[in-house]
């Protein structure tokens, strides 16, 4: 029988395949040959066959039938076999397959082999893919090897121990004795892996951390030797002695010094030395400086050292190497909270990075810019950020827009500036702003009373240009609905008032209704806006016509609104002016802790006098009249204030105690109105049973969507809650 072809031969053959199909055919043929060879238990060529299998596996073909063969190779006494066998195990087996446990015994034997290279193979495999069970079984052997004087094995055992600890953290204790004199080794390989092991142990256990703090002086000494020692060809990288070891020591020092004054004190000098003496012309020097900066910022370093660190980052920002700039931005982002002023000094460089071509750098620069915005630099920063918003990738626009809104809200120097900024965002990135920005903006506009005319004019002009960006269109429609009278009468003070007639305004709003670009939500906004204008404009007939047309719209939401507005025209015309009057100023309540932003609205029912609502103290009765044309949804948690208007079914509703706490009792009674049985009358009794007065009693009513009052459109979009002020 001819010998199986050699590995290199196979590779050469497969590479001559011109198509995927041809390659697959060759592979299948060879796999068949290999399979029969395996079946015949051929010892001589097993190694060669498994090697070929591994090559085919890398090309993406299945190779699971070779798993057991790898185990047989590992058990062989030939070094070549073991080498390929262990490689195969690492590539084809993983801890999910039960087969891998069969390796445990072989590895145990090989860990005790007479040849260090065999031991090395075993340690490597265990440290790379050993499962928890394997680690448990073999931890003792690893611990033994950790104490050997053979540095070749000791360094591997240290990293193998790291893996064991990661897999089975409870075993960490057993490695403690062996760590006693790890750092006194001269061999850099052992030193490096020991520091990694110590780092792992300190990260996982606070007890270990306190135990190893005493190593700080030793670590400092080793680091010092590395820096001060002369040229050592074996460990030199571009003039720096063993940068890998330096970086790992700095990282361990970071962990040991964090939160501990004495340790931080002990490492202060060496950190300053590394920070000032490290050569920065090549990447390797900067890698060490980077780690040093991270350490300085994390431990309890003195302020001089911290400033030094930030300045290093500042220099990094000016480096030609993109990687260095990226790393600087990342680090600055971490430190901007704690060392705000120091980072501010580099603001202009950071802002320049917004113009970088690299996406990752731009994102970092954007995040950092937002963190640096404050009352002093808001105007300048916003100019840069708006320019960035204009030109950045679509992925950034949503985040950037949100950031701009937040910053504007916090630091706006004037209301006009604030509204201008918002307008700019809506016009440049209008389709990317988040959904909750629409109600936020509406609330902001409502509260800027003196800017109403200016705002509606600007929004109107923006609509004339572009109706594709839905958030912009929605805010604009709402504004026109509210302040259309100001628009038509040309009352704008801030800029030249435009001449626009009622018909032109209605044209624009109707245009939104029919446009394909408008979403259903937008259509709802514009219909309501048109309706509101019925009390502000004189073109009543036109508005009535539009409203009645949409009474047969396919869109259910639109249809319902149109029908109700129609009803308002026909049957409740006397209520129309009051219902559609200007929205009052809204209070914004921010609940801290979970950061939920709740807007509580005053006087949802303008029909009611505000005074009546407030005068609930002392048990006055108030009778709000609520129209329901549609049965509402059933009540949720009984006794809660939310969803009070649920379950207003057409049968009798028993009275309920809505609130009974701290001496305040609120009861609701329900009855049908006599002339119109479709109206439910809710009577609210509030009594104060304590001796003291209750002041600042706030009563607010919230209407669920199903009630759909025209002036409650805004409530539909916001999270509703009751607010009992105390």
């Amino acid at each position, binding site marked *: 029988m001819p010998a199986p072809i050699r590995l290199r031969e196979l590779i050469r053959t497969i590479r001559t395949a011109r198509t995927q199909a041809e390659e697959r055919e060759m592979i299948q043929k060879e796999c068949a040959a290999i399979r029969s060879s395996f079946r015949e238990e051929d010892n001589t060529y097993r190694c060669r066959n498994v090697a070929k299998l591994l090559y085919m596996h890398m090309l993406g073909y299945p190779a699971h039938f070779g798993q057991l063969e790898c185990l047989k190779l590992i058990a062989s006494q030939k*070094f070549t076999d073991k080498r390929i066998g262990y490689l195969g195990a690492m590539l084809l087996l*993983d801890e999910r397959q039960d087969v891998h446990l069969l390796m445990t015994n072989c590895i145990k034997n090989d860990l005790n082999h007479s040849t260090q290279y065999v031991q*090395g193979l075993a340690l490597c495999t265990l440290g*790379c893919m050993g499962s928890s069970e394997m680690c448990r079984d073999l931890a003792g052997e690893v611990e033994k090897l950790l104490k050997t004087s053979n540095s070749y094995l000791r360094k591997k055992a240290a*990293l193998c121990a790291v893996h064991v600890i990661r897999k089975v953290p409870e075993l960490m204790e057993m490695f403690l004795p062996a760590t006693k004199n790890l750092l006194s080794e001269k061999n850099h*390989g052992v030193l*490096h892996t020991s520091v990694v092991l110590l780092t792992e142990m300190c990260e996982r256990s606070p007890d270990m951390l306190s135990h190893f703090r005493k190593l700080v002086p030793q670590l400092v000494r080793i680091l010092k030797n590395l820096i001060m020692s002369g040229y050592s060809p074996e460990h030199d990288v571009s003039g720096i002695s063993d940068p890998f070891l330096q*970086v790992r020591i700095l990282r361990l020092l970071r962990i040991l010094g964090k939160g501990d004054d004495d340790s931080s004190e002990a490492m202060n000098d060496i950190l300053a030395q590394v920070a000032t003496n490290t050569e920065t012309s090549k990447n390797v020097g900067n890698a060490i400086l*980077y780690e040093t900066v991270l350490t300085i910022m994390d431990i309890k370093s003195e302020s001089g050292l911290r400033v030094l660190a930030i300045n290093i980052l500042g220099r990094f920002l000016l480096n030609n190497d993109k990687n260095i700039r990226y790393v600087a931005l990342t680090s600055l982002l971490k430190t901007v909270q704690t060392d705000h002023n120091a980072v501010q000094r580099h603001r202009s460089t950071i802002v320049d990075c917004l113009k970088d071509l690299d996406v990752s750098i731009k994102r970092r620069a954007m995040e950092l810019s937002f963190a640096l915005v404050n009352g002093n630099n808001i105007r300048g920063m916003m100019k840069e950020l708006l320019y960035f918003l204009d030109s950045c990738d679509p992925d950034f626009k949503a985040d950037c827009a949100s950031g701009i809104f937040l910053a504007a809200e916090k630091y706006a120097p004037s209301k006009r500036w604030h509204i201008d900024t918002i307008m700019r965002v809506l016009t440049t990135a209008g389709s990317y702003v988040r959904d909750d920005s629409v109600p936020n903006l509406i609330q902001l506009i409502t509260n800027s009373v003196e800017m109403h005319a200016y705002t509606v004019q600007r929004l109107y002009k923006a609509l004339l240009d572009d109706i594709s960006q839905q958030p912009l269109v929605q805010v604009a429609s709402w504004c026109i609905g509210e302040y259309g009278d100001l628009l038509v009468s040309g009352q704008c003070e801030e800029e030249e008032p435009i001449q626009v007639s009622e018909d032109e305004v209605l044209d624009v709003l109707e245009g939104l209704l029919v446009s394909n670009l408008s979403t259903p939500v937008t259509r709802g906004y514009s219909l309501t806006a048109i309706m509101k204008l019925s009390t502000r404009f004189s073109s009543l007939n036109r508005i009535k016509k539009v409203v009645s047309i949409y009474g047969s719209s396919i869109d259910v939401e639109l249809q319902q609104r149109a029908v109700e507005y129609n009803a308002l025209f026909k049957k409740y015309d006397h209520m129309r002016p009051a219902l559609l009057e200007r929205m009052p100023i809204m209070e914004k309540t921010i609940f801290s802790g979970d950061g939920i932003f709740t807007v509580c609205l005053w006087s949802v029912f303008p029909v009611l006098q505000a005074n009546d609502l407030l005068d609930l103290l002392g048990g006055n009765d108030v009778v709000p009249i609520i129209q329901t044309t549609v049965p509402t949804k059933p009540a949720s948690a009984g006794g809660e204030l939310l969803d009070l208007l649920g379950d207003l079914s057409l049968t009798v509703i028993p009275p309920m105690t809505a609130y009974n706490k701290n001496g305040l009792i609120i009861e609701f009674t329900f009855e049908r109105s006599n002339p119109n049985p479709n109206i439910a009358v809710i009577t609210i009794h509030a009594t104060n049973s304590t001796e003291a007065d209750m002041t600042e009693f706030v009563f607010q009513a919230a209407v669920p969507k199903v009630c759909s009052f025209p002036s409650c459109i805004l409530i539909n979009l916001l999270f509703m809650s009751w607010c009992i002020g105390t």
Partner: protein
Amino acid sequence: MQFMLLFSRQGKLRLQKWYVPLSDKEKKKITRELVQTVLARKPKMCSFLEWRDLKIVYKRYASLYFCCAIEDQDNELITLEIIHRYVELLDKYFGSVCELDIIFNFEKAYFILDEFLLGGEAQETSKKNVLKAIEQADLLQEVRALATA
């Protein structure tokens, strides 16, 4: 380090070393997506990118991309040095290494990697020592093979 991938500019995998347990399917998926992402990067872009919850460090040497996935607390710049050290080792071993060397001697590339890194961390920081160990192990292969023939 969680894994290291070597692939050509056409997206063909030349070496894959995984230090975290994942199924074959997951490995294939990650490889495919990451290779696509890295190959889409323009030459002037920086060597780091965020991908899923990992930091990816990659560098191109001639026709091969060396790509590592590291964890949050790992130092990106030193990872570039790790990659460079591995390339130097390959170069010394093969004598002016090129992609074909790695294709035809992939098992040797793995052996060298396994003498340099263990469990995702560097086990030996001296270039000389790594190459010496490989040399000795290679000799062992020859000797043993002759003894049993």
